[in-house]
């Protein structure tokens, strides 16, 4: 029983859906960040699997850039989270509806 590309893509889809369910369901901003990391990891896994199976290095390049983007996103986002926590004392999304939308 050998592994095919489909195995990896199905696993990536499962991980992405887990992250998506987290983004939709959670109300805590830190948990939203964790779910976003899961989604980025799933995309990375799909990129690297396709890159390895069709013998093309572009997918791995994109994975590297996605990791760089994730690192900078965490740096800026965590700074913003700390500011929000200092100002409101909570990270709940329901407290941030200043515009009453």
């Amino acid at each position, binding site marked *: 029983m050998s592994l095919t590309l489909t195995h990896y893509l199905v696993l990536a*889809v499962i991980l992405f859906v*887990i992250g998506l369910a987290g983004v*939709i369901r*959670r109300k805590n901003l830190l948990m939203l960040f964790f779910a976003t990391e899961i989604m980025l990891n799933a995309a*990375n896994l799909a990129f690297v699997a396709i890159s390895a199976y069709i013998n093309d290095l572009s997918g791995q390049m994109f994975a590297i850039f996605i*990791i760089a983007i994730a690192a900078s996103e965490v740096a800026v986002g965590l700074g913003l989270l700390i500011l929000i926590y200092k100002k409101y004392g909570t990270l709940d999304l329901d407290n941030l509806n200043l515009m009453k939308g």
Partner: protein
Amino acid sequence: MEAIAFYIFGALIVGLFLVTVFSKNVLYAMSSLAAGMVLISGLFFILGADFIGAVQLVVYSGAIMALYAFGMMFFDTTREVKEKNSSSLVVFLLSGLSALILVVIFAAPQIGQNITPLVTAPEGADNPHAIGVVLFTKYLIPFEVAAVMLLVAMIAGIILASKKMDRSLSEYGEDCLVDENCEPKDQK
């Protein structure tokens, strides 16, 4: 052998990420996220992408999770996360619908079978060597742009996390950049 490793890694990753998403405790969520990222690097090693696996270990489970750990020193992590989920029916409907769309999107490469490689690895080079060659020839400009973006993100993170919140940053003078207890200029 690879299949066994793949299934073990896959089951563990799915379980750990489920804990991350559905846990009430932030500390549990963060630890299981870190463990899942380590295991994902295992999948990269199985795929033969050694360099990405090492980068995943160093950047994700090293740097990003350490950043989260530092950030959580500012938050109250012992308290359980209280959330009120108002309309669970809509949430589950939306999740299911988007999952279906995602499966269709991800299955699309299976339909197109005649894919030709755009950037092939150089002859006789192992994975880190090939990635270095391709990264510094074909992808040099995106690499430099990513470096500039990381610099911007670093400066933004430092400024965001280290300044006081209740006043505008432009109220501070230049000599206040190091002094934590400095007051705005117009109050003196």
